[in-house]
């Protein structure tokens, strides 16, 4: 592998570790979702860019995977957190750690 590819793959794997450690160590559900939903698509994006020059025309498959992941994983995390917010207790969500709760504000505005 050329040095640029190696560096990009290494950056991506370090970001994946940061996503995993954040998922493990954060104590509020919002912070865990935040770490998992933002760090892991970026991690795969770095790895895909680093691996693309090494696989020739098969880089197209890596591009499809990276685009699909970057488009869908944040949206899926958002939907999952909204479902959690609607159904879970406030002790699990740790509402006191939030500075602003715009989901509750929006639902109060639509249901007078």
């Amino acid at each position: 592998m050329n040095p640029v590819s190696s560096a990009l793959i290494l950056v991506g794997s370090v970001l994946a570790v940061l996503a995993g450690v954040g998922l493990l160590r954060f104590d509020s559900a919002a912070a865990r979702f935040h770490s998992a939903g933002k760090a892991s698509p970026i991690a795969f994006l770095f790895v895909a860019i680093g691996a693309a020059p090494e696989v020739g025309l098969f880089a197209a498959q890596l591009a499809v995977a990276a685009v699909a992941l970057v488009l869908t994983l944040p949206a899926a995390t958002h939907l999952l957190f909204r479902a959690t917010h609607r159904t879970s207790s406030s002790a699990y969500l740790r509402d006191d750690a939030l500075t602003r709760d715009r989901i509750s504000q929006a639902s109060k505005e639509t249901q007078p």
Partner: protein
Amino acid sequence: MITSIAIALFVVSSLCAMIRVIRGPGLADRVIALDVALVALMGAIATKAASTGSTTYLPIVAVVAIVGFTATIVMTRFLEQGSGS
């Protein structure tokens, strides 16, 4: 050398996610931890393809990237119907 380090880091990431799957207080934590483990698997496959130049397993990466999304959406529907928590 670089490949070994990168794959070891991906293994560490998916081990963290697996601990969260076992311990996680809610269903949503487990779903998102499985997503992170899936991304680590995809990164490890891409790293292996880049280091050896063999492209046999690259379609798995593309398919997993598309199918993992639908699994999360299905779990979201399941959560909103109130059957699990």
